[in-house]
């Protein structure tokens, strides 16, 4: 429990006397109590009241409270909503990464990638989706399909987006 001076700072009140009055009210309500030295300790009703938004009367159902800590599928899949686009996959060069023709990938628009991310990029005027590998000073784009070979950009490499999720609906 906080001390009186901490409460003074937290509430912005001017005097400890004002803090004292509030503490007394909380004590009357059974929310806090004082130990033998006068320090604040939790009262009998501490934790009994669930402060849930602006629920004014009645007890919130347990489900309501627990669901505050869940996220929607959309929140799970999408981190930066404004930068996220969807894209339909047509080729199979990433099949061993679990990305198949017809799949939807959610991509985040940006121009730099980190090692190991799957990127959507324009390489020497061809669009492709591959693993981004950077070692030493060289960049390689690695497919996830033995039929394809890694691509080493000759003239140009322009990253448009980075794959964040793949979705397949059956």
């Amino acid at each position, binding site marked *: 429990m906080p001390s009186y001076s901490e409460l003074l700072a937290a509430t912005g009140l001017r005097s400890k006397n004002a803090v004292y009055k509030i503490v007394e009210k909380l004590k009357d309500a059974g929310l806090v109590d004082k130990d033998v030295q006068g320090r604040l300790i939790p009262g009998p009703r501490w934790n009994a009241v669930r402060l849930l938004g602006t629920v004014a009367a009645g007890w919130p159902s347990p489900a309501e409270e627990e669901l505050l800590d869940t996220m929607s599928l959309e929140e799970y899949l999408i981190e930066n909503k404004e*930068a996220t686009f969807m894209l339909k996959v047509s080729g199979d060069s990433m099949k061993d990464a679990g990305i198949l023709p017809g799949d939807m990938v959610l991509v985040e628009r940006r121009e730099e990638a980190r090692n190991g991310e799957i990127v*959507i990029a324009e390489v020497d005027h061809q669009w492709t989706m591959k693993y981004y590998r950077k070692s030493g000073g060289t960049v390689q784009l690695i497919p996830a399909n033995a039929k394809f070979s890694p691509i080493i950009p000759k003239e140009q490499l322009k990253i448009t987006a980075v794959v964040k999720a793949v979705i397949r*609906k059956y």
Partner: protein
Amino acid sequence: MPILHIDGDAFFASCEQARDPSLKGKPVVTGKERGIAASLSYEAKARGVKRAMPLFEIKKICPDVIILPSDYETYSLLSKRFFEIVRRYTPDVEEYGVDECFADITGLLAHRSLGEGGRHSYKGMAEHLQQTLTRELGFTFSIGMAPSKVLAKVGSKWNKPHGLTVITQDTISQFLEKLSAGDVWGIGPQTAAMLARYRIGTALEFARQTESWITAHLTKPHIEIWHELNGRSVMPLMLEEKTDYESIQKFKTFTPPSTDRAFVFSQLVRNLENACAKARRYGLAARGVGIVLRTQEFRHAGCEIMLERPSALPGEILLSLQAAFDMIYVSGTQYRATGVFLIKLAPERFDQPDLFGKILKALNVRKVYDAVDALNRKYGKYTVGLAASLKAQQFAQHEGERGDAPIRKHELFKGETGRQRLAIPMLSIKI
């Protein structure tokens, strides 16, 4: 106090280039379904293409032009994202149009979204915002930063595309001396002509007039502009999302033009349904309805009807609409567009009884529309409508080449339908 005006560069065409990066650097025009250029990329502009130019003319001066049907769904999604990104920097954002907004960044230099680099100055903050918009949305924006809205708007137009123009109290005159008064936001041709008679040609000459001259010769909106041009912010940002409409209009063109009376009427009824749906969404009802028919020769016929009680229920308005339509429709004329205007809007209410018990009937009709709105929300618009608009539903709005739908409407994912798609813009890259 720095106010930003942020303006999307060639917004619709840029949305297309962001959606399909292979269009970057190429002349792109949107508006295929209308037969004229609605928006054009800077590459098209450089080739001499102008807004509202007929498409056949564009093809003559720019044979490699890429003409696309308007994809308002994608434009709307990207427009919302644009405003959301600006709101990361400040809560004070006025959405002024689909492609522009004002933002007040006063006192927000320490904002956590900026990182170290952007915190040193308001200009640094504007640059940071401009970079974020381009990186995440995939196209450019021009920004004006100034002590007032009118000056911020001068700034955003100053150096397009991808410009960032800062106007301070000390530099106002350098900008205004190069700007004609008629080019200032809010000064129309009438006012510009009136000013010209007093030998006021540039925005600076206007700004330099004395307050007594201004108040003697102009009315409130223009007096406000005069203050704003002098760097005194008197026009507050409208921060609320617009829910308070004075009127709602729905106007739609169809191709080919038609002489079929029932078809033209069905187009009018569809506009009525769309306008009423929007009014109901905002809890509004119209006291009057205006209708207009446009002929193939761009002649217009219109009339206005007053309703017995304010309404936003097409079923209730239909008979009056039919009567008005019959008055202005001319058989044998080729029509190309119809429009409906809901006017004198007020909050919808059902607590004023009338002698003939119409209110009771209206209450029941209102319940029907609660169900209609719920169905259309769930299954997509036009799922349930009046039989009178059926003919408009049965035919594509535009036949032939102009009927091409945007790619988003036919490249569907499993589970998406022609009526409803995921609220995420789609990249059209073949990979």
